[in-house]
């Protein structure tokens, strides 16, 4: 198999399904509608809305039909921007859209990291208000809570704060690039060294050197307010403060941290940005932000905000917490000891009609092998029909986890909740 792709066997696939279902449920509860995007796009079409870093990671090849360059999308947001701008521009705003799909990105050869990324995300298009940004963060918190995480943080930034300082600084482009890199790493000493060699006012230098340390709780806003003077950065702080006020109403403030030195995806985002982190897991599990310039690349200028979960990152984070539920096994394995299969099939059907999952153990084998099979297949209960474990008008139900069995009258089965 090629590197960076994985076969997901039923146990893992079930957990992925469980996570995706939880996410989808939250998206739908908030009124988002699903969009299914194609697996192929023309390179020249998708490239207009992708940053350089993403372009370099894209899988490309020739289209036999047209001779043009095709790509397998490395991200779904550019596709949503294209679809909204070209296909949905006549409908009233805002659009609340969600997607759930896989994208491919080249990874470094040795790293063996996944090249396949399972994304589940939303885009809220047509709103520029802080409430729209707050909605994104609140949904992210709701999903993470719903998955059972308790110790997690959503870290919020505002790229306009950084841009405002840089634009007002008068520092030349090359030095700005180096500063940006150092700030991204919170490397305060490198920032200091670069600043020592550039021509800028003391006030500007003070603002820039504050950036690597402007992270923490809400007090960061006050600190930042004291150091900046330019209007653009002030507007960014006001905006962030609005978003935080709304998130306070949502009651999620305890899950938030603020980082004004967070400038990832600077060429893409235009306002609020955020990433979700789960304690004990080294990388982010979701990320997003405001991108007001994207749909205009396809001739339909519209403010927009959105975010996506990395489903495999969530899976790995969940697996570090085995006590959390990670997808249900099958409810019943129906094990028939009688010659006649009629009753077994009838009971299976009635269980399914009531919403229980039930698989028939069609192979003829003894009780112990059937129980071992149920254990292996993550089936919760084994139901024995016939045989000498119970009387004729009963079935025998074994809880697979601890082998505890109980005889139940067949007449009582339809009323039982197990």
């Amino acid at each position, binding site marked *: 198999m090629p590197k960076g792709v994985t076969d997901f066997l039923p146990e893992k696939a079930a957990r992925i399904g469980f996570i995706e279902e939880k996410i989808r449920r939250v998206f739908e509860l908030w009124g988002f509608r699903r969009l299914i995007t194609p697996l192929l796009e023309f390179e020249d079409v998708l490239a207009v809305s992708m940053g350089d870093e993403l372009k370099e990671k894209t899988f490309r090849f020739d289209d036999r039909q047209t001779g043009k360059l095709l790509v397998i999308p490395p991200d779904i947001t550019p596709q949503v921007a294209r679809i909204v701008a070209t296909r949905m521009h006549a409908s009233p705003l805002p659009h609340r859209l969600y997607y759930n799909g896989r994208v491919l990105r080249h990874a470094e050869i040795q790293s063996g990291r996944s090249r396949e990324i399972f994304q589940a995300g939303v885009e809220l298009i047509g709103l520029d208000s802080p409430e729209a940004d707050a909605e994104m963060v609140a949904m992210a918190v709701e999903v993470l809570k719903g998955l059972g995480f308790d110790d997690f943080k959503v870290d919020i930034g505002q790229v306009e704060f950084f841009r405002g300082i840089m634009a007002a600084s008068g520092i030349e482009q090359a030095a700005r690039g180096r500063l940006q890199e150092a700030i991204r790493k919170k490397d305060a000493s*490198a920032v200091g060294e670069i600043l020592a060699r550039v021509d800028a006012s003391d006030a500007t230098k003070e603002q820039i050197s504050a950036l690597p340390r402007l992270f923490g709780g809400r007090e960061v806003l006050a600190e930042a307010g004291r150091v900046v003077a330019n209007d653009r950065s002030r507007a960014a702080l006001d905006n962030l403060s609005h978003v935080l006020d709304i998130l306070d109403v949502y009651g999620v403030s305890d899950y938030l941290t603020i980082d004004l030195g967070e400038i990832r995806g600077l060429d893409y985002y235009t306002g609020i940005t955020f990433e979700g982190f789960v304690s*004990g897991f080294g990388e982010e599990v979701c990320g997003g932000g405001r991108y007001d310039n994207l749909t205009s690349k396809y001739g339909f200028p519209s403010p927009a905000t959105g975010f996506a979960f990395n489903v495999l990152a969530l899976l790995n984070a969940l697996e570090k917490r085995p006590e959390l539920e990670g997808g249900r096994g099958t409810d019943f394995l129906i094990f028939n000891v009688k010659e006649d299969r009629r009753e077994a099939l009838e009971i299976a059907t009635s269980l399914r009609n009531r919403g229980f999952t039930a698989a028939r153990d069609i192979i003829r084998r003894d009780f112990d092998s059937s129980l071992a099979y149920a254990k292996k297949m993550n089936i919760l209960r084994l139901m024995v029909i016939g045989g000498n474990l119970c009387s004729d008008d009963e079935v025998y139900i074994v809880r697979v986890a601890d082998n505890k069995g109980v005889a139940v009258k067949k007449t009582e089965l339809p009323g039982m909740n197990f």
Partner: protein
Amino acid sequence: MTDFITIAIPKGRILQESVALFKKIGIDCEELLSDTRKLVFENSEQKMRYMIVRATDVPTYVEYGCADLGIVGKDTLMEQDKDLYEPLDLKFGYCRLVVAEPAELSCTDDPSSWSNIRIATKYPNITEKYFAGKGVQVEIIKLYGSIELAPLVGLSERIVDLVSTGETLKQNGLVEVDTIAEITCRLIVNRASLKTRQKRISEIIGGLEKHF
């Protein structure tokens, strides 16, 4: 389990200086200096855990979140270029990353006319990047130790390596021709750790910062 802060520290000289530094901010990890083969140490009172690893592995443990913090030389960080925070220059472990060549070659050599040169080094990525920035093509020979040997036996004309006093270069008849970077030890932090355990980690960073 998760309320512990884990620090990855490399073996050797850096270990002693790190222990001394942490002691200054009230974090006691003298146990690391004891003569034992243990790799993980725990101080349950202070809720700290320490891992002793190879210097080049420190960024990996921190990147994957197995350690929240790490101490490592800037040379290793530059070479591996991982997505980590490097909030503090710890100022110890000073040395320089230089280009060196045999003394006799340097008499007639003009670095501005270099093209297509061959270089032996432990740092292929830094070397590649540095010379690409100058527009010079390089053939890189990756070695794992005793880099100074390469020019002596004709493996390469020049080397890129760390020097602290310059004594090793001198003894092998080599001279520095260019400095690529000045190197010190850095405190590195996993991104998720900084966000999810911001308070404790900020305290450690702030505490260490006061001692410079």
